[in-house]
């Protein structure tokens, strides 16, 4: 599902962030009500486990509570989305969720194609620097290719869902992602992001 980004939600965002900022316990309930479904869907896409997704979903609000303040996010939905995404990745790693067939396994396989030197190389030059380079790379892409890339690798959406959301055939999405991964690999190499 989409995250809220309308004027309604912006005002709601500010209200909820203020609640966190002033340490009001109702902040968690409000955030959960506004973004619960969104966060749950991200986690469930990654883990394909109701139990694990619920656990990550619940932990998201505690992490958010601990993060605001000092942080004051500009867009609360993406902020909590990142938190639940990272929690879900941690859960995946700790429980070796590959066996469950969540969307994360094929996604990581796909991303291995974008790694300079192949997936077996020891360590990509990391982490903050990598984030900056990826941001720069995405800005070189056509908008449609960038959107499909983020739907797949930020939202962790299944291909069928992306097809439905964007009105594009699955085969065309696969082709676009394939080309983008190739370009990303070249870009990472060019930027020296290799072992």
């Amino acid at each position: 599902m989409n995250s809220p980004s309308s004027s309604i939600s912006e005002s709601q965002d500010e209200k909820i962030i203020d609640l966190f900022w002033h340490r009001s316990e109702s902040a968690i309930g409000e955030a959960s009500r506004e973004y619960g479904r969104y966060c749950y869907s991200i986690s469930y896409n990654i883990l394909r486990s109701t139990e694990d997704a619920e656990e990550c979903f619940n932990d998201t609000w505690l992490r958010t509570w601990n993060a605001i303040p000092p942080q004051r996010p500009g867009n609360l939905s993406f902020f909590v989305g990142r938190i639940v995404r990272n929690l879900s990745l941690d859960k995946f790693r700790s429980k070796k969720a590959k066996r469950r067939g969540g969307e994360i396994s094929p996604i990581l396989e796909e991303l291995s194609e974008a790694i300079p030197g192949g997936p077996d190389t020891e360590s990509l030059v990391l982490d903050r620097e990598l984030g900056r380079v990826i941001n720069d790379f995405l800005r070189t892409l056509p908008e449609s290719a960038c959107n499909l890339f983020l739907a797949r690798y930020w939202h962790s959406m299944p291909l069928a869902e992306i097809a439905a959301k964007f009105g594009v055939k699955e085969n065309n999405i696969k082709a676009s992602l394939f080309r983008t991964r190739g370009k990303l690999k070249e870009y990472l190499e060019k930027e020296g992001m290799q072992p």
Partner: protein
Amino acid sequence: MNNEERLYQAIGEVDDELLERMEQAMAEQPTGRADRNRNKGRLLWQAALSSVLIAAALLLIFNDGLFNRDGNVTYTASGPVVDRAIGNEPSSSVVTPGNGQIVYFDSVRHAFETNKDSRTKYFVAIDLFADDMPLNVGSFDTHRELKRLQELGLQVGYAESWTYQGEGGQVDYLYAAGLLTAEQLKNFPASSEYGYAFRFATNADGTPVPAENGVRSESKAKIK
């Protein structure tokens, strides 16, 4: 953490601006193909819910036949708009619609079935549900769905009612509403992502919300 996981994690840190652009692109696409991609379990669940709803609807029709043979429709003075009707209102727990389903409260159904003037519009509250849970009127989903319906030419948006607060005080709040013809109600373009319940809205003291209050396309800031 291996390289793929590092890359995946780093993608999580992309700028909000790029994410907003993606969300915007998704919101602008009509939904529809999503239906075919839902899993079988969901379809079974919906089928089971449909059975329950049909049973509930039959019960309500039966009750209506017994106790409300002379259903009385009240019109506003200002024109061909119905904003209230007398009938049996089921509790909301009975009429929670599943995704893609539409439920008309008895009074609404009775109003548009008994009034044969096709020009008549009905001033109805639209309760939106997703996965059996009511949507908050201020939520992005509500906003997006109302926008979709507006783009289909339906006069839907937000209307204002009031409720009690504190000791005898009143406070206004918004709800999703529409000014719709019988034809539009009967052929309502439901999305597979949401359930819809149509009813005539009332204020906290039971008085109908008058059609003169109107429907506005944006919520502004007054959200309960």
